[in-house]
């Protein structure tokens, strides 16, 4: 499996990478860990005449915790997220989700930036970032701008990032409350049949805040706002969970593929969301 030929570049700063993107236009792509792009290139489903490797750009690396605000450089790997003790305490759902991505070798290469920027509905970080209300930072030839994770995804592999922009970082506030990322997959290394990210806050027996996002159940990640609202003010008991699942079902739009027919995916989505709500509530 040999990809089509390409020119390789390894710029050592962001300006260099942006200049190459500008110069080669549609014929150029940036590569981070490459574990989504390289398989597509090997299958010749993606042809990239000019491949711009971001590995030497230090500004894209590093995990920063500034009070309650967390910033992940685009080149931070899943392995680095898992190993970071501060993140495990401040935002445990991030580690919980990262551990369910692929396998150890893939997590050593795969980056948060690649995961969110690629636009593959199967990626886990986009839904999680919508659940967290994260902000994506992109830089283009003229200026940098911020795009909310909840506004970023337009269709499969289509995002609000322009072709001449590079996603440089992801930032979000450490959330209050109980959190859980639950994922059903056929085997290690598979994308989700269904996955749910849930963050709940509670006072006594009442849910005071809820954010719910679903993965791989539409051509984009789905932040199911109404499903969260169905839990607020309730005790997150059986009736409330059923109401949230019903609201979530209105928001998703799964299609049949080798992970199963639509009815099975909807069934699995309900089970996984109930599990994530129960887990998050027990931790809230």
């Amino acid at each position: 499996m040999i990809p089509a030929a390409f020119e390789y570049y390894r710029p050592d700063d962001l300006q260099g990478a942006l200049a190459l993107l500008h110069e080669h236009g549609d014929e150029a792509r940036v590569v981070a860990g490459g574990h989504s792009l390289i398989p597509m290139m090997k299958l010749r489903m993606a042809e990239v005449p000019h491949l711009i490797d971001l590995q030497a750009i230090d500004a894209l690396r590093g995990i920063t915790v500034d009070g309650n605000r967390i910033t992940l450089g685009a080149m931070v790997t899943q392995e680095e997220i898992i190993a970071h003790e501060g993140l495990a305490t401040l935002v445990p759902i991030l580690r919980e989700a990262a551990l369910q991505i692929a396998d150890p070798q893939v997590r050593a290469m795969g980056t948060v930036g690649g995961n969110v920027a690629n636009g593959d509905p199967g990626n886990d970080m986009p839904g999680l970032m919508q659940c967290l209300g994260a902000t994506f930072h992109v830089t283009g030839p003229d200026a940098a701008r911020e795009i909310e994770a909840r506004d970023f995804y337009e269709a499969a592999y289509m995002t609000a990032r322009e072709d001449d922009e590079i996603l440089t970082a992801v930032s979000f506030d450490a959330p209050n409350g109980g959190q859980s990322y639950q994922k059903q997959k056929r085997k290690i290394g598979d994308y989700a049949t269904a996955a749910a990210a849930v963050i709940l806050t509670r006072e006594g027996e009442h849910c005071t805040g809820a954010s719910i996002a679903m993965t791989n159940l539409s051509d984009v990640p789905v932040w199911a706002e109404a499903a969260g609202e169905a839990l607020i003010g309730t005790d997150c008991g059986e009736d409330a969970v059923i109401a949230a699942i019903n609201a979530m079902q209105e928001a998703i739009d799964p299609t049949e593929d080798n992970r199963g027919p639509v009815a099975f995916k909807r069934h699995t989505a309900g089970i996984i969301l109930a599990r994530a709500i129960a887990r998050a509530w027990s931790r809230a």
Partner: protein
Amino acid sequence: MSKKMQITLNVNGTRHELLAEPRTLLIHVLRENLGITGPHIGCETSHCGACTILMNERSIKSCTVFAAQADGAEITTIEGLGTPDSLHPLQEAFREHHGLQCGFCTPGMITRAAQLLKENPDPTEEEVRFGMAGNLCRCTGYQNIVKAVLAAASEINTAKEAAQ
């Protein structure tokens, strides 16, 4: 065909300079340019882990990295872990505990396990299974592979204690 580029790889302590097209996969450079045939080509789709090597002290699948990306990297393959006369404790444990049958997955298994034990020198059985989840074996059913990794961990830890 694109222009070949000069690539420097430090493999098992030896520096190699070679010419390769950027699109050449690292596994092909290792096997075909350098004759290092320990890492195997199994699925070629980043699932099976037969091509696992260490790159800059991380376990990676060399079928999903371009040689160009590895330019300048420190690489360890199964050939760098032990020799026939002086086996690595993992190699000894795989032999002792029958951790292989056909042997095709074994170089990747052992190379991955070596890094796992560096990161977690005293893993539980569950941690071994989770840490080795990126390596597939179609023969053993994994039982003896897990036994071998646990035995090697114990062996390495005992040797470390004895040395102190």
